[in-house]
């Protein structure tokens, strides 16, 4: 035993000896004891803890030269005792003895504590605006040491995180500049500044810094700069940066309209400046003109964007080129290009199943106006943006049974269907619009509906139409005018003060829509008026309007929210809930969630409680996984209103995700005892499941069957029946090519979408508001564009089983429409062979390409011309369309052809073929992407022609011949589409 003990290294069993040594008078002995204790503290801290006072006195002894060691020891003991605050203060006393690089729990814990402490002191100082004079310099030193160490060790991400947390922008900049991959670091920065920086002000500071850093780089990444600036809402910076059309598309995708307008204006002003020689150094990067020149140099170097072939032209045609480019960019920025392309895509890929609608129509009793109009809504949503109004045209008689408000919504539905059809919107709606001066031929309802429809068509892009709307508003007595966004303030206010209930409600909402996110002082005015008026509807409209004005303002809105939530009037409190939802939308802010949960269980009014729960959906939509967990208890509430709110909250925040927990939560609610809960649950379920195929979640199929059953069941409640009809509409929204997305790809909120859903959730009070859901639809497509903004034929790979993301199969009895739209491009082994063949071919081409490429670069200026002549040539490397279908076992991938439907879940499977002719400028798997033509000399094959809109109109017009008047004369002769026949209301 003794031998064994001797063999193993002898260990002390107690620190008693060392502690006793502390009491020795000789300082060397004390030092010896201290340093040994410091080494053994990990195992003997319980013993040492009784002697802490002695060590503390050593630390306080000014004459003792190893005070810091004593402090370190005490700090460690306190750490083990769990007294982190004391521990930290002694660790600070330890100064340099506290080694930040030591890899121990103690150091990690204390560092975390120190950084927390520092960050909280810093942010407190920043909030109270006084200088951080009370900041402990020792604390600062530790944090700085830590930051420096991280930077030295190459742990830039940690350094960045800490710097942001601690509000040390200087260190942040240092970390970014020193990192080896500045671009990656910068994008990481942008990401975290969005996801973790909660304070708006501070986030802006960080972003401003990032822009500064970006500008310092030798080759600035204009895309990211633009993004940052957009978040900052500072248009001035962009004239420096704005370059590629891709940027423009990315900007448009985020739908920040006011910002886009500013950019556009700045662009035109830049044009007026004199052009300067192209060979300017990068120093001259001030005006937009120069920038395009310098940037094109960059581009040549990196071969980065599609712009190269234009910019090689000499100074002479430069003016022309510039003008051309400017128009293009302006077109994109105004959103017209993307809208048009989307329209084309939605039209050509429309896969909506008319049979479903037919079934619904047949099962619905014509006298039941609620279900009747629900069917109309469903139709509108199903075909949103596709311009396919066949169903309406085929069922004019049936449609004619609509009365009053139903008529209103039927007309407005046309607007949803033709959403984005900017050019023809007016003429399309012409028959229904109030004839100025003439007092109007149709009923006021259909006129109102038509105006509403126009509003929807032009939502967010309304310049052209606003004058017209304003005029008609003045000249007609139509009760309700849903004008959206673009009516001048004065007009709306006049309407408001006429104190007419319905108009007032609408006006309230439209004022909100107009001033989305402006937090203007008008909100106060609206609040005052809301107190004065007697009409509940007006109050509600105003409340929602106020809520809309504070969109995205976060803390700034707190006073207003406080004011509203404390109000006597439940409707205003209800507005307060919406204000909370919108002000903190997508932030998952804890304070907002807490407040909402509080109201959800404590308010006396059912409306307020329902809205509070619903608002949770808005606050949490950036983190959909959270929502089901948070509202799961509420979904079991005894109060049906709360259950309804919970259902919609899940629907809103998990929209389009197909999240399994969300579906599990909603499933029991779809068979709730209360009819309106069922309705809400069905709608929410449809929102969650939109574009989820049966293959990825079998419950989708079950849900479809459930919907069918409810619709066909004679004894089902009207409410849930309506819910089911709407749900089936939403499920197949936009010809099965759109999803509900509240966040853009860059994780920025899409204002229009959020606002659209917010107003949609008001349909409880007024059904036509259902149409607002169409604002939140965004097409799920990959659309590749060449330099001319045309859609060339281009193939890419989806590395997943085709069945996972295919369109739902059309319902049983095949109709003409569905037969024509059977799934195309099913790939088979033959396709593989073909791909191989193409590759070989491409290789050969590549060889010839090289020589021709050399030629073209030497004669750089010709390329533009060469390309255009190539266009005429018509000889092409035409690839056969892969439409042949084979009943073979499913392959593990499929090849998609531009433009293609790419559902969000599919995005991660998308791969671009390396040997294809086009290379995307930005490796984004969906949305608009500009393609760089690697073989510009060859002719291009365009897959989407220019004129689908006109053919669409023609086709629609063809359908319309079933109307009362034969309109053959008007049909397909001119570009203008044939307006649909004004249907008559027979009842």
């Amino acid at each position, binding site marked *: *035993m*003794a*031998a*064994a*003990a*001797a063999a193993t*290294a*002898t*260990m*002390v*069993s*107690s*620190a*008693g*000896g*060392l*502690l*006793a*040594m502390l*009491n*020795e*008078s*000789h300082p*060397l*002995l004390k030092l*010896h004891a201290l340093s*040994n204790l410091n*080494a*053994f503290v990990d195992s003997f801290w319980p013993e040492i803890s009784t002697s802490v006072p002695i060590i503390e006195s050593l630390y306080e002894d000014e004459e003792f030269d190893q005070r810091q060691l004593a402090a370190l020891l005490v700090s460690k003991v306190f750490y083990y005792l769990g007294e982190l605050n004391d521990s930290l203060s002694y660790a600070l006393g330890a100064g340099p003895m506290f080694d930040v690089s030591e890899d121990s729990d103690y150091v990690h814990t204390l560092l975390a504590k120190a950084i927390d402490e520092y960050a909280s002191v810093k942010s407190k100082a920043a909030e109270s605006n006084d200088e951080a004079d009370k900041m402990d310099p020792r604390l600062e030193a530790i944090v700085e040491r830590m930051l420096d160490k991280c930077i030295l060790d190459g742990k830039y991400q940690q350094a960045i995180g800490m710097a942001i947390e601690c509000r040390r922008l200087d260190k942040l900049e240092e970390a970014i500049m020193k990192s080896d991959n500045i671009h990656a670091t910068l994008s990481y920065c942008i990401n975290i500044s969005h996801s973790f920086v909660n304070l708006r002000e501070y986030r802006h500071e960080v972003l401003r810094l990032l822009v500064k850093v970006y500008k310092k780089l030798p080759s600035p990444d204009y895309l990211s700069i633009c993004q940052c600036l957009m978040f900052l809402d500072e248009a001035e910076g962009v004239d420096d940066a704005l370059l590629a059309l891709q940027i423009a598309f990315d900007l448009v995708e985020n739908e920040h309209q006011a910002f886009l307008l500013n950019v556009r204006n700045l662009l035109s002003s830049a044009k007026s400046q004199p052009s300067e020689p192209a060979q300017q150094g990068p120093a001259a990067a001030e005006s937009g003109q120069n920038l395009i020149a310098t940037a094109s140099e960059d581009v040549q170097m990196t071969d980065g964007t599609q712009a190269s072939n234009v910019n090689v032209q000499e100074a002479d045609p430069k003016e022309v080129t510039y003008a051309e480019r400017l128009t293009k960019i302006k077109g994109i920025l105004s959103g017209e290009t993307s809208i048009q392309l989307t329209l084309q895509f939605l039209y050509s890929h429309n896969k909506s199943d008319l049979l479903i609608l037919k079934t619904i129509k047949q099962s619905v009793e014509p006298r039941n106006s609620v279900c009747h109009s629900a069917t109309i809504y469903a139709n509108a949503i199903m075909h949103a943006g596709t311009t396919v109004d066949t169903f309406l045209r085929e069922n004019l008689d049936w449609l004619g049974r609509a009365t009053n408000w139903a008529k209103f919504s039927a007309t407005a539905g046309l607007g949803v269907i033709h959403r984005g059809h900017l050019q023809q919107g007016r003429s399309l709606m012409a028959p229904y619009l109030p004839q100025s001066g003439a007092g109007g031929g149709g009923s006021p309802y259909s006129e109102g509906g038509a105006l509403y429809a126009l509003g929807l068509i032009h939502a967010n892009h309304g310049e052209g139409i606003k004058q017209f709307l304003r005029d008609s508003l003045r000249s007609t007595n139509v009760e309700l005018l849903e004008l959206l966004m673009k009516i001048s303030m004065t007009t709306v206010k006049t309407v408001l003060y006429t104190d007419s209930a319905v108009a007032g409600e609408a006006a309230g909402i439209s004022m909100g829509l107009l001033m989305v996110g402006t937090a203007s002082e008008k909100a106060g005015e609206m609040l005052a008026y809301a107190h004065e008026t007697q009409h509940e509807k007006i109050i509600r409209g105003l409340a929602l309007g106020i809520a809309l004005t504070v969109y995205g303002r976060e803390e700034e809105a707190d006073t207003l929210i406080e004011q509203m939530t404390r109000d006597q009037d439940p409707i205003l409190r209800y507005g307060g809930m919406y204000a909370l939802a919108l002000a903190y939308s997508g932030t998952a802010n804890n304070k907002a969630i807490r407040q909402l949960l509080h109201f959800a269980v404590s308010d006396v009014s059912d409306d307020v409680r329902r809205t509070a729960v619903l608002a949770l959906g808005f606050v949490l939509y950036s983190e959909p996984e959270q929502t089901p967990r948070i509202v799961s208890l509420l979904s079991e509430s005894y109060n049906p209103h709360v259950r309804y709110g919970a259902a919609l909250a899940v629907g809103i925040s998990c929209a389009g995700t197909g999240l399994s927990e969300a579906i599990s939560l909603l499933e029991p609610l779809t068979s709730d005892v209360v009819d309106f809960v069922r309705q809400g649950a069905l709608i929410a379920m449809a929102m969650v499941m939109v574009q989820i195929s049966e293959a990825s979640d079998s419950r989708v199929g079950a849900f479809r069957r459930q919907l069918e059953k409810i619709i066909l069941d004679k004894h089902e409640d009207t409410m849930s029946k309506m819910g089911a009809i709407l749900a089936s509409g939403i499920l197949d929204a936009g010809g099965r090519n759109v999803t509900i997305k509240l966040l853009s790809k860059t994780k920025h909120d899409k204002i229009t979408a959020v606002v659209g859903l917010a107003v949609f959730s008001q349909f409880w009070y007024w059904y036509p508001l259902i149409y607002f859901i169409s604002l939140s639809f965004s097409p799920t497509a990959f659309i590749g564009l060449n330099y001319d903004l045309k859609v060339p034929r281009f193939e890419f790979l989806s590395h997943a089983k085709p069945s996972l993301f295919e369109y739902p199969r059309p319902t049983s009895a095949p109709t003409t429409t569905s037969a024509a739209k059977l799934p195309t491009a099913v790939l088979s082994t033959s396709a593989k062979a073909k791909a191989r063949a193409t590759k070989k071919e491409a290789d050969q081409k590549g060889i010839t390409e090289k020589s021709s490429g050399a030629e073209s670069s030497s004669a750089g200026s010709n390329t533009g011309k060469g390309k255009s002549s190539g266009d005429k040539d018509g000889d092409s490397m035409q690839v056969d369309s892969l439409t042949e279908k084979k009943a073979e076992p499913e392959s593990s991938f499929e090849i998609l052809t531009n433009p293609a439907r790419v559902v969000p879940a599919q995005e991660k499977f998308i791969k671009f073929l390396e040997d294809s002719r086009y290379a995307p400028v930005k490796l984004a798997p969906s949305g608009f992407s500009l393609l760089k033509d690697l073989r510009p000399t060859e002719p291009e094959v365009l897959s989407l022609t220019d004129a689908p809109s006109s053919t669409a109109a023609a086709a629609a017009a063809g359908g319309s011949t079933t109307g009362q008047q034969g309109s053959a004369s008007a049909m397909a002769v001119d570009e203008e589409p044939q307006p649909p026949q004004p249907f008559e209301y027979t009842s």
Partner: protein
Amino acid sequence: MDPNLTEVSQLFERFKAAFMRNDFDTCDNLLSQLKVLLTKFRSLPPLFEETPKAIHELTLARDIYEHAVVLSVKIEDQDAFERDFFQLKPYYTDACGRLPPSPQEYPILGLNLLRLLVQNRIAEFHTELELLSATALENPCIKHAVELEQSFMEGAYNRVLSARQTVPHETYVYFMDLLAKTVRDEISGCSEKAYDSLSINDARKIEMFSSVQDLFEYIKEEHPEWEIKNGFVIFQRAKESAPCKEIPSLQLINQTLSYARELERIV
């Protein structure tokens, strides 16, 4: 030979010489130097590094600390005793497998037990006792201390005082004197409570003084508040005996009843 080790050995020789001469000041000085020098040896606790000279160094260090303990007893410094003993202890507990046992071990452990007894730190006394092996308990030095504690606890104070004559080691005398004082303190504390007054003779007997003179001296030093009058020692208990605190039973009963009533009302 390691220069450090030589230095320590030489210094230690000088220390021992001074120790024999009973020149305690020099001893103290030398000891302090020795201790500082000892910190340079890495084979000593708490590091216990395996060096070629480890055994030698350990033995030497142990020897030094044993002398330090004995020295502290001789200069009657209890704090120094405690300090030195704790520094010595690892040599006994942790290095026992590597060193031949020291002849001084049990006397010093016994001394420490005695010290704890003197300072009336009974809990620590028993902790130390638990750490000792059965053979150690058989050792006369330890046994002495254990028996003392037993008599002390039983209240057989006369046995405690008489044990002074049977000390197993000459260094024990100092502590035995102290212990006698502790015992007397204990006795006087008890008699204060138990009696109002005692005849001087009885008091002398109880306090186990050999002469009345000693008793008077003791009273003068330790208990100046005692009065000596008419051949009696009068304890001052009557003066200071404060009225014993009453248990507020009535109040408690009232409270409990009202709680019960309230509870009934709520339910």
